[in-house]
């Protein structure tokens, strides 16, 4: 990760003591994800330019193809706008989507605070419905990584299937989470990241709301069965959710590399 985007223009003429820190802007942008690939737009090298003029920030971004779903592009554009706006010292944010077949409409719509439905009157799906579907897929794909981490730590299907939110202590250590088993008589440490990433998405999709909620669920959001066979079936299904995202990411990365000269390794 993290080769420098050759296309990125750093604004050398910016005031020597800008009110807004470029790194802070990048940090906010890192929170914006490509909703289909479930990955940060900074990691994916979509951010083409960041220009800071006092408290005015302009962010340019470019997508792997001019035909990327307008709904996905819209989510990223509004995400950029909202994240950077939340930064202290920022007075105004302008977002520019270039080299996209709906670049002008999306740029105008986001900067003028319009709704997706008013910009794309002929779109059938509301942008929130699309986001929810993608979030649910991302939740399920992240479950695969989380369950794999738990299995590697020695937990069996029954233990994993019956875990609740309160059994997991994500604050155990900087890189470690602790999982409590057997009514609190046993504690196992596991890598923190796959679990915290999962919990974040599971909360965002509304799967986890109360303290007693089972941590994991099948594709449809139904609690896992503890018997090994159905556990294995859901595990394979979650792997497929990962493969779908990875395959689509392969297509997008290759297009991005070829069209925009951006290489991710």
């Amino acid at each position: 990760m993290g080769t420098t985007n050759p296309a990125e223009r750093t604004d050398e003429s910016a005031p020597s003591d800008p009110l807004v820190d470029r790194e802070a802007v990048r940090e906010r942008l890192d929170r914006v994800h490509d909703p289909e690939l479930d990955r940060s737009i900074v990691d994916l090298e979509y951010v083409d330019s960041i220009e800071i003029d006092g408290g005015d920030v302009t962010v340019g971004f470019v997508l792997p193809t001019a035909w990327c779903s307008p709904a996905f592009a819209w989510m990223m554009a509004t995400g950029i706008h909202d994240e950077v706006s939340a930064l202290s010292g920022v007075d105004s944010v302008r977002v520019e989507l270039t080299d996209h077949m709906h670049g002008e409409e999306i740029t105008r719509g986001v900067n003028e605070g319009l709704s997706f439905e008013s910009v794309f009157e002929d779109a059938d799906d509301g942008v929130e419905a699309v986001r929810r579907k993608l979030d649910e897929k991302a939740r399920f794909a992240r479950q695969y990584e989380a369950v794999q981490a738990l299995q590697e730590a020695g937990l069996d299907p029954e233990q994993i299937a019956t875990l609740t939110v309160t059994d997991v202590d994500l604050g155990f250590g900087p890189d470690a989470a602790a999982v409590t088993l057997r009514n609190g008589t046993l504690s196992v440490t596991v890598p923190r990241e796959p679990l915290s990433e999962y919990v974040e998405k599971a909360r965002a999709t509304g799967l986890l709301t109360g303290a007693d909620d089972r941590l994991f669920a099948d594709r449809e959001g139904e609690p896992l069965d503890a018997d090994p066979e159905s556990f294995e079936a859901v595990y394979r299904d979650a792997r497929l959710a990962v493969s779908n995202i990875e395959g689509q990411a392969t297509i997008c990365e290759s297009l991005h590399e070829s069209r925009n000269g951006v290489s991710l390794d």
Partner: protein
Amino acid sequence: MCYHDTQAMYTHNGEDVFVIDGHIHLWDATEENIIHEGGEQFIQCFYDYHAAFTPEEEQWDMDTYRQYGKERMVRDLFGDGYVDMGIFQPTYLTDFYDEGFNTTDQNARLAEEYPERFVLNGSFDPRDGDEGIEHLERLKDEYDIQGVKLYTAEWRGDSKGWRLDSEESFRFLEKCAELGIENIHAHKGPTIRPLNRDAFDVADVDDAATSFPDLNFIVEHVGYPRLDDFCHIAAQETNVYGGLAVAAPFAQNRPRKFGNMMGEMLFWVGEDNLLFGSDYALWEPDWLIPAVMNAEMTQDQRDEFGVELTPEIKKKFMGENAARLYDIDIEEKKAQFQDDEISREFGLGDRYEEATAD
């Protein structure tokens, strides 16, 4: 390891592989043929895909890509490309292109020169109503088509696509069954103006496949960006197949991802239900076929998926599965190709002789 001293019949570890390229086009995207800006956008989009997955030294220039013509196509497929037979998949796009982009009638101009080497497919759009039925009947009558290529996400006027399981579509599928057009290729992948995410939905394939058990439904590009939904359907329906166009070039620049994708395909869809396609001229078989034939799953991947990507399995999706769907007798074809026009033109006859003598 592969040997190909002469360019006919791909051989892998000394064994012949009869290649039926299940997805080829002969298109015309010349500026004179473009009548709508969508036509230019469409070919530019295709070119992006071409460049993204083609080794740099094999990339074409845009002018060649717009219209490569019959001669070049024959050489690229049969002369240099190891292909033994090719299946045309038409793409009409008559709103964008004056004469159409890649229609059955256009394809027929080449296919009829070498009928033993090509399979012609037709197309239908249920929104055409009675006229569409007549079109389908004419294609059957004129070219004896055994398959159709469908674009459910194609926009037309106020309509942003159609569903395979709609009443109008069923009328056409019934007509296909009646005429003996058994292979229904559904394109669910990238499209122009994908405003509606449901244009990619593959659920309609499920209902259609259940309702028409005698038809075969081949989901092109293995359902991307809905690989997961496609796999669920293919796992349940024996008459649902996956076309490997778009996925195959992963073998060239993302071999590990290719292994993973094949693991999923073999686990969910099965070795008898996959069809290779180069998507020519998106990609060329001369480098794509060796890339796929030489691809391997890692030991980790074999353990994870519990499947193997053996030479026998590759032979199935490279040709044997398509032969079954299109009633092609491979041994008969080998004998015929010892001395057909293509073999004479490119000096390929010997290879088919060896192949049948074995």
